[in-house]
């Protein structure tokens, strides 16, 4: 019984595969490219389940690998049947997709049961498990949009977006340069630096701190993005106005977090510095700034997403004919949704890279903090 509970994913997948046999073929009668692979795929799922039973006692690594291979080979075979048959897939097709999804889910749980000692293996698993999840979002997206024939305008399938990306690399690159390398970076650097400097000033001058903090806390909660039209009026259509929006948006989170971080030291640590007759700048550089680093990095991370949003939204209020926000707003007008999605994907990748870089720097700088060690 325990064995059944432990393997319910794959057993259910096999039952589904058998059930799918009664609904074959994979395509509806009026499909243009009828497919005869249904039997083979269903067999693949059952074989995977049987293999799993054969190697039941061999540890989660092998079990996970069997499930992983079985699930994704079947999924690949299923997707290859989609081309030309949009909206013409039979129930057997969707049942088999569900069955392979169950196998993939089972493989992810097998892998997450693993606690390898080796660092490289650990890192690999940490990437693999979310990668399976991400791959299945794409697979299901593809299956749903093509399988049910969802209108292209509403949601294009990922494969179409991928083709669009590959075909418009030059345009995407120009947009990235305009929006990210110019507007986002300039605004981010100016906003974070000035927020940091004002935080140090506010820390030094108590009156300033008492006055600025309530205002800074309030401002962090406000829809600052609304200044975008004003900035475009003041600084013109080019990237400078977007950088200004980003500066205003990133300033307050940095200010508030840095001030909070600077007061995050314990009384004992501060008394210790006092017994050394340490002066303000020594206490600042040797104790309070290092202790504030987790807070400062928190602000840097928050700001990395804010900066991207600020620059793109500001482009809706007027741009030269290049930039990610510009491209999105014009292409949606022409109903070229695949291009809009290509920009979104680019923005997501750029945003994740930006965030990831800061997170890496954070791990290097705050290695000592309980949350990273």
């Amino acid at each position: 019984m325990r064995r059944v509970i432990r393997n319910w994913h794959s057993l259910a997948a096999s039952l589904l595969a058998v059930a799918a046999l009664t609904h074959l073929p994979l395509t509806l009668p009026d499909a243009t490219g009828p497919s005869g692979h249904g039997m083979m795929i269903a067999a693949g799922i059952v074989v995977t389940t049987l293999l799993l039973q054969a190697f039941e006692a061999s540890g989660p690594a092998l079990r996970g690998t069997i499930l992983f291979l079985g699930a994704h080979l079947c999924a690949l075979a299923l997707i290859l049947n989609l081309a030309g048959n949009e909206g013409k897939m039979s129930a057997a097709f969707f049942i088999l997709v569900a069955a392979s999804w169950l196998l993939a889910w089972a493989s992810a749980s097998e892998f997450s049961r693993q606690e390898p000692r080796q660092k490289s293996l650990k890192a690999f698993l940490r990437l693999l498990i979310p990668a399976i999840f991400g791959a299945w979002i794409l697979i299901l997206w593809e299956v749903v949009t093509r399988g049910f024939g969802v209108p292209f305008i509403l949601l294009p399938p990922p494969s179409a977006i991928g083709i669009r990306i590959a075909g418009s690399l030059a345009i995407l690159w120009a947009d990235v340069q305009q929006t990210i390398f110019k507007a986002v970076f300039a605004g981010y650097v100016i906003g974070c630096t000035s927020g940091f400097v004002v935080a140090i000033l506010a820390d030094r001058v108590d009156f300033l701190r008492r006055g600025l903090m309530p205002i800074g806390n309030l401002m962090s909660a406000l829809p600052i993005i609304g200044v975008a039209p004003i900035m475009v009026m003041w600084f013109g259509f080019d990237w400078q106005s977007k950088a200004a929006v980003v500066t205003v948006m990133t300033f307050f989170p940095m200010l508030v977090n840095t001030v909070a971080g600077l007061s995050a030291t314990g009384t004992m640590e501060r008394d210790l510095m006092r017994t050394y007759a340490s002066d303000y700048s020594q206490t600042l550089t040797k104790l309070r700034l290092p202790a504030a680093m987790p807070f400062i990095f928190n602000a840097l991370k928050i700001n990395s997403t804010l900066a991207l949003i600020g620059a793109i939204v500001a482009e809706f209020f007027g741009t030269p004919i290049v930039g990610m926000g510009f491209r999105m707003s014009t292409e949606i007008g022409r109903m070229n949704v695949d291009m809009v999605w290509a920009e979104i994907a680019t923005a997501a990748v750029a945003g994740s890279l930006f965030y990831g870089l800061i997170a890496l720097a954070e791990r290097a700088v705050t290695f000592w903090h309980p949350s990273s060690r």
Partner: protein
Amino acid sequence: MQMSKKISTATAKPYSVVSAQNLGLTFDTNDGPVHALSHVDLDIAKGDFVSFIGPSGCGKTTFLRVIADLEQPTSGTISVNGMTPEEARKARSYGYVFQAAALYPWRTIEKNIALPLEIMNYSTSERQERIARVLDLVNLSGFGKKYPWQLSGGMQQRASIARALAFDADLLLMDEPFGALDEIVRDHLNEQLLDLWSRTQKTICFVTHSIPEAVYLSTKIVVMSPRPGRVTDVIHSTLPKERPLEIRETPEFLEIAHRVREGLRAGHGYEE
């Protein structure tokens, strides 16, 4: 009080490291004034190992913090090395060991010990040499490159003592440094501390609430009591300077411990 004064004048050496006259400290709180210290007279001579013992709220830690210029007295006078506490602090005349190790987690043990040396502008080579010396003194050689969180609580506290020893202060102020450690580690560290004291000839002020610890370590035991915080007895230890752990079973040791306990009981007998 009268007696304590007599004793301290009788045995006072030519120059006292800490000297307090009629010292008082009152905190203003929402529930009215709290007399943390009242009419404290005390002399601590060079080379003394003085323990402050008493129940919580008796002002023993406050007194240590006054010496360290971490609190300001509201009445009376106090001098440290013949200076005001503030001057003494600015002259870096003492090392302070807190209840917790208070090591900075982003610095290795070496770097933590280097912290006061950096602040006091010691040269790099001088720093190296001192770090090696104090690490050896507290038996932590070989752990310099570790981060604090990689060491046990007892080792962390030893590192914090090394940090207090790194610059040449001949006064060591220790505020219940071993309070958070278990009995076995504590015994071990007590032994090491005595060894260190005899090798370095420092003056040590040591706050504790353990009677055996106070008796084992000290040349002089200051018994304090709360509400208001005051000194009720000053006991001079008759134990020899050489003290193996077994000394704690001798009649002499037990007699001093008994006197300390009597003093503590007299101090807050009215509470029952």
